[in-house]
């Protein structure tokens, strides 16, 4: 097979680049991350004629001036400097036809890369609506680039583009150098820089990068070129920029000025735009959606809808998921004899798979909304509306939707931070998202509040103690997140606040194809890349709770319980049958001998009565036997958990959790809930010999005592546990998703360490202070 033709696709955000990518590659794309950065690497393979073509989708950008490593990736790919990515042979640059001036800025940079460029004029329909007219043939001539007009969302012009790509690849004369648009002084300094780098034995940079080095004050290249001569380079650049400023070419303004001058000259007489922009439907809609009152109202309603959809809409789906998981576990469990293998399969493997799948409903629902809102153009408005509020926390409006979603579940919330381009804002949002009170904390709060807080109401029925406690717990994380965000920004991302220079794109109908593709991509990426690790964590914690221990007795007891329960079931059916028969017979006898059909004698009725009595007796006997058997089984499971690695660890950490008012059992519950917070409820159910059941757990908590007879649980202890769970990172899935989204283990580790530290301190403080209060 011949090597594929490599094509890079680049363009401004909101130009329909993703739609074009899907139209070209049929949305079968390989996705991953470029090593060491959070930039998504997306490559789609297609065929044009008999050629195999790989299309690299580069992140949407307004400019090729790299300010960070993330922004450098696009430049590196285009110049063939990205190690694992072949250099593109053709660059397809997509521009918004209704907004040529700004879009051509990127084009003017791309054409300096020395690669054949195909220009795609997309959204020609929007341009026509806005009264923008242009002459494509003349524009193509002026730019010196082949040009194709498309309406990517209607798949118009795609075939022409395919042909143009092949033509560009086969054209023998790639533009070796385009006529420079910069003053000659800049070129001279660039050449001087080449000599200078050579003197320092620094690897040579091509003209494009030298130009960037000169133009990007404090840019990524300035900080990462000629590392051995860092200070000399900075000094040299400073002098060169001073020389340029003297000659009337102040850096960085000279770049934008020169490029926009070139753009104006190029577009002169080729493109015309009405002096006063016509009011389009999009403009009228925007007036409503950014209106002071109506805009806020629509925004709040939309956010409530999304939140409710994730929080409530996902619940039945998640219940089905759990029910299905239990059903499969029951059926598979029957084929296997009791023992480690059965437990591994039913609790470890099936439970592990279930714990991954259970997130899918929330991810799918959230991304359905995000993809819809982004594609139709509202997402930028949401950021616009919320920005002022979020700047108080040091973030931007773009962090609002991810953080709000995290109140339902941090996993999709963290995945949603992809909509934040700024790295500092994105990472800060990722790191504080798990502090938002997610739905997995609710069972913990419900148990402890239900058990230890009185159902007392003040002010009529308005204010309840339980509701207040729940409200306090739900808000705690968000309140703690405010100073945390500030500290994270200060320590990890010092420097100026990133600007909020954001385009508000025109509204359009979302494309169902693109929306579904996006939802599918996210769900798939979660299962494939985070799922395996979440699954493995579950297996590990299962093993720690299972081994070491002799499970013979518990298995025997379980077998007896199963047997009795099966008999109980058949006996109940028998009893119900007899009872129904007897009732019917009595009715017939009472209505006299004239009744037709069944003829029944008194002795037969008596027989039936006897059978019923026997059945009821047997049932009572089963119940009598079952209760102590279950108690014995539960006591044995509790003993096994206590003896397991997990139980021993729990005992080992008792001195650490004692200051929080906890005994070792709570310690075990916290350890076992590392995969997911709500697991503590069922673990406590096992420890208190309830067979993992929640029923009776409140009672068990009330009667739990220290060896000296003092009760373990009190309001301060309940508070301390709840505060711990409000702030801790006991959610393996969240940590795995942090790793995946930041592409770095250290951030996941940091999140775990800082949140556990916060949780411990918070619980300690809560316990010690509230103990004084409640005595």
């Amino acid at each position, binding site marked *: 097979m011949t090597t594929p033709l490599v094509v890079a696709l680049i363009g401004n955000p909101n130009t329909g680049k993703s739609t074009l990518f899907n139209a070209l590659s049929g949305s079968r794309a390989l996705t991953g991350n470029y090593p060491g950065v959070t930039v998504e690497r997306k490559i789609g393979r297609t065929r044009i004629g008999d050629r195999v073509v790989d299309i690299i989708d580069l992140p949407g950008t*307004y*400019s090729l*001036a790299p*300010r960070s490593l993330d922004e450098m990736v696009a430049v590196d790919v285009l110049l063939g400097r990205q190690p694992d990515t072949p250099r593109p042979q053709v660059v397809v640059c997509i521009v*918004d036809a*209704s*907004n*040529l*001036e*700004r879009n051509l*800025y990127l084009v003017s940079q791309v054409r300096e890369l020395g690669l054949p460029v195909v220009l795609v004029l997309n959204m020609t329909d929007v341009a026509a609506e*806005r009264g*923008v007219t242009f002459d494509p043939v003349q524009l193509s001539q002026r730019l010196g680039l082949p040009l194709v007009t498309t309406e990517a969302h209607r798949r118009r012009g795609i075939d022409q583009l395919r042909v143009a790509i092949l033509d560009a690849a086969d054209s023998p004369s790639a533009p070796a150098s385009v006529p420079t648009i910069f003053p000659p002084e800049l070129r001279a300094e660039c050449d001087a820089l080449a000599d200078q780098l050579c003197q320092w034995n620094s690897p040579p940079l091509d003209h494009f990068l030298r130009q960037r080095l000169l133009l*990007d*004050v*404090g*840019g990524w290249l300035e900080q990462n070129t000629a590392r051995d001569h860092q200070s000399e380079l900075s000094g040299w650049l400073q002098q060169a920029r001073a020389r340029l400023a003297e000659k009337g070419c*102040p*850096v*960085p*303004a000279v*770049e*934008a*000025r020169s490029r*926009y001058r070139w753009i104006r000259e190029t577009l002169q007489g080729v493109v015309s*735009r009405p002096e006063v*922009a016509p009011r389009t439907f999009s403009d009228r809609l*925007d007036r409503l959606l*950014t*209106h*002071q*009152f109506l*805009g*806020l109202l629509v*925004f709040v309603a939309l956010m409530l809808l999304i939140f409710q959809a994730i929080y409530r809409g996902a619940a039945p789906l998640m219940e089905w998921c759990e029910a299905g998981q239990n059903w499969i576990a029951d059926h598979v469990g029957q084929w296997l004899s009791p023992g480690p293998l059965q437990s591994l399969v039913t609790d470890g493997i099936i439970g592990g798979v279930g714990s991954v799948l259970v997130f899918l409903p929330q991810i799918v629902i959230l991304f359905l909304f995000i993809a819809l809102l982004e594609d139709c153009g509202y997402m*930028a408005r949401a950021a*616009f*509306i919320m*920005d*002022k*509020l979020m*700047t108080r926390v040091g973030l931007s*409006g773009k962090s609002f939707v991810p953080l709000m979603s995290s109140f339902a579940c941090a996993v999709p919330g963290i995945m949603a931070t992809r909509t934040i381009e700024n790295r500092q804002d994105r990472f800060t949002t990722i790191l504080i998202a798990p502090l938002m009170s997610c739905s997995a904390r609710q069972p913990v709060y419900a148990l402890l509040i239900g058990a230890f807080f009185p159902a007392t109401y003040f002010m009529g029925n308005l204010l309840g103690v339980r509701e207040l406690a729940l409200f306090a717990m739900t808000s705690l994380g968000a309140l703690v997140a405010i100073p945390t965000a500030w500290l994270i920004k200060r320590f990890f991302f010092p420097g*100026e606040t990133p*600007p*909020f*220079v*954001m*385009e*508000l*794109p*025109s509204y359009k109908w979302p494309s169902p194809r693109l929306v579904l593709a996006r939802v599918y991509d996210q769900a798939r990426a979660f299962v494939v890349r985070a799922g395996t690790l979440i699954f493995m964590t579950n297996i590990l914690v299962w093993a720690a709770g299972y081994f070491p221990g002799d499970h013979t007795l518990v298995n025997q007891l379980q077998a007896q319980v199963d047997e009795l329960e099966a008999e109980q079931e058949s006996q109940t059916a028998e009893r119900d049958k007899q009872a129904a028969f007897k009732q019917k017979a009595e009715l017939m006898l009472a209505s006299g001998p004239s009744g037709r059909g069944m003829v029944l004698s008194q002795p037969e009725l008596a027989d039936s009565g006897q059978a019923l009595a026997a059945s009821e007796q047997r049932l009572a006997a089963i119940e009598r036997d079952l209760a102590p058997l279950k108690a014995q089984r539960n006591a044995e499971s509790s003993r096994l958990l206590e003896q397991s690695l997990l139980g021993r660890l729990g005992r080992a950490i008792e001195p650490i959790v004692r200051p929080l008012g906890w005994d070792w059992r709570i310690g075990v519950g916290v350890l076992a809930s590392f995969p997911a917070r709500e697991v503590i409820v069922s673990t406590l159910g096992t420890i208190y010999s309830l067979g993992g059941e929640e029923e009776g757990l409140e009672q068990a908590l009330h009667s739990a005592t220290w060896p000296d007879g003092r009760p373990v649980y009190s309001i301060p202890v309940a508070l301390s546990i709840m505060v711990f769970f409000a702030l801790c990172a006991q959610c393996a899935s969240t940590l795995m998703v942090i790793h995946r989204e930041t592409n770095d283990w250290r951030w996941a580790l940091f999140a775990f360490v800082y949140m556990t530290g916060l949780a411990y301190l918070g619980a300690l403080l809560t316990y010690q202070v509230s103990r004084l209060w409640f005595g």
Partner: protein
Amino acid sequence: MTTLAELTPGSRARIVAVAGADAISTRLMEMGLIEGETIEYLGPAPLGDPLEFRVCGYRLSLRQNEARRVQVEVP
């Protein structure tokens, strides 16, 4: 000198200069805020900040902080 942050909603102005030589100024210029360009102030966000503009045929939102860097003259 008037800045972008001081315009009244619905008014138009001509950009004179973008102050500063840092990444933010570069970004503003890249987005088309170039001397000579006409810019229209459409209005603030519901909470008062950021502000919405129309420039180069598209809508751009800037915080007051960034808008203050852009000097304009009102015709």
